[in-house]
């Protein structure tokens, strides 16, 4: 192969990264003692500039019903005081790096009232716009509150794709449930084939440690296991929220018992420019 020297570099890097590259040796997942103490992570993300105007979207279907709403682009949401909303912050897990889940959270999410994440079709948009779901414990409940038929379509990688029509309430079928079968590493986009301006995102994870920033930019992830964790930050317009400090939008933090404050992170508007 033409790039053999690159492969040697790659293999060396892998060897130093794993530290146990012996032929045929099965390298087990990193095993560490289960955490017995838990901490919270809080913080705030600020868009350090004037909030850009949200583009008005083209509403060209079902105009009698949908034309009366002021439907605007939601890919960059900046609140009144500069808070950056709808940003995902979640613990990164992989084949080797699992995360301990606090038993209290296991109990909490097993309760019936927490067993559902809802997606509503209302006012000709998806509400909420950004969602997360602990796929092993929760089901996705999709409902149509609009006076026109709606469609919900999404295609998670390696999982069953969805393309559901929801007739008008109260015809049977106006609500549907969906179960994700695997976790995703980035949020899955949701579209409507009838109304192309509609969009939303859902992130199925195998743990509850995910927060979506509110419109004032604040977020909180409770009851994380103490110790070092890697977090992924994702924003709809640019994907991984890369900053000079966060390569690929990731940062590591050692969680201590009690509250861990990431602080107020000011993000330069130039970070959100799509190349």
């Amino acid at each position, binding site marked *: 192969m033409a790039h053999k020297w690159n492969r040697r570099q790659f293999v060396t890097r892998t060897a130093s990264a794993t530290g146990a590259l012996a032929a045929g040796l099965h390298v087990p997942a990193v095993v560490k003692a289960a955490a017995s103490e838990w901490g919270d992570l809080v913080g705030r993300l600020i868009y350090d500039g004037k909030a850009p105007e949200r583009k008005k979207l083209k509403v*060209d279907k079902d105009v009698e019903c949908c034309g009366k709403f002021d439907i605007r682009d939601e890919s960059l949401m900046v609140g009144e005081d500069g808070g950056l909303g709808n940003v995902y912050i979640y613990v990164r897990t992989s084949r080797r790096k699992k995360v301990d889940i606090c038993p209290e959270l296991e109990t909490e999410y097993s309760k019936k009232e927490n067993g559902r994440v809802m997606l509503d079709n209302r006012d000709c948009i998806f509400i909420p716009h950004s969602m997360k779901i602990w796929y092993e414990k929760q089901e996705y409940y999709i409902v149509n509150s609009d006076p026109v038929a709606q469609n919900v379509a999404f295609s998670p990688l390696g999982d069953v794709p969805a393309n559901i*029509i929801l007739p008008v309430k109260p015809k049977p079928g106006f609500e549907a449930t969906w179960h994700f079968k695997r976790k995703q590493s980035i949020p899955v986009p949701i579209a409507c084939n009838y109304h192309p301006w509609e969009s939303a995102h859902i992130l199925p994870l195998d743990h509850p440690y995910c927060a979506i920033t509110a419109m004032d930019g604040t977020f909180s992830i409770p009851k994380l296991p103490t110790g070092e964790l890697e977090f992924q930050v994702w924003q709809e317009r640019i994907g991984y929220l890369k900053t000079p400090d966060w390569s690929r939008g990731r940062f590591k933090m050692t969680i201590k018992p009690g509250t861990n404050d990431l602080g107020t992170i000011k993000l330069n508007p130039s970070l959100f420019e799509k190349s």
Partner: protein
Amino acid sequence: MAIRLTAWAAVLVGLLLSAGCDMPSPQFRLNTEGRAPEEIGPARADAITEALEKLLGTPDEPNVPEGVPLKIGQLRAAAGPVGSHSDGSDSDGSRTGLYRRHCVRCHGLSGDGAGPAAAMLNPYPRDFRRGIFKYTSTNAGAKPSRKDIKRTLLKGVPGTAMPSFVRLSQNDLDALVEYVKYLSIRGEAELYLLRLVVDEDEYLPLHELAAAALEEGLLPAAALWESARSAVVTPPPEPPTDAPQSPASSVAKGRELYAQKDAQCVKCHGPNGEGDGEDAELYDDWNKPKEGVTPEQTAKLARLFTLPIQQLRPRNFHQGTYRGGDEPVDLYWRIHVGIKGTPMPAAGPAPGAAGVLAPEEIWHMVHYLQSLSQAE
């Protein structure tokens, strides 16, 4: 003393022959759709290719890992170079090269839908690697059944360049169906590895990468193919279609259902089923990623994809040409389970969703659509 010319010629020819004329065996091409070449890099590309080769072999020699339900005998008949005899068999009588003989020109060696002829075709040949197939009888979200793939081979896809292969033997058809499944499952494992190695930046040694691809790429995809059979939609008996002019007839009922708001047929197919619904740029799942927010962005994105963007046209029912087949049951399935990978949604009931049309209503719709092309 001058050595004779013929002696020199003999030496030259001898040298040439001893060098051999071995062609390097063909390799699968990495799926780079939507990614810039520099984003992947040669080291990662090699890692992914090696892991997949370890698991699934090469275009000449396929391999089936433990636990993956693929029939190696059928794969061997489909894989490999076309045999030297006129019927495609090799000197030892074995059959190989069915895929390369019949399919590779359009569907490409890797099943990427980008064979040499593909660029001239509208619609493009299927890219198997996403695991999505359009004309199926299985519920929305499920893989096609083996019968669905075989039906496409037998009927072809009318209105496209996909011909019918009805003249092939049953064994040959079965081998090709199995190979399409193989390429599709391989494609999904490759997508998983791309996500893992490129997006997630995971450095794993070869055997771990292969293990990850097997457990989280291949086996889940294979399991979905196996469960497809239980997801086949069996339509109820077809209601009678006589007296199409009477208001109570099936055709009339179908006309009413077509126009009503819930199924939203009119939006794309137009009020008279001429495929002239509200102007919308529709794309299938293979072409949607090529669309930018502005035409300039679309032009920029083009370099990340093998074939240029291609639009999708909603069917004009007056023409009577249906890509998935024009038998009544074919039309039934298109409405009930939708056309996967396109904006055509599933209207019939499915597990977890009651749908907008009851099975009998779908039959009325089928009769209405048939009446549109018969009226001319």
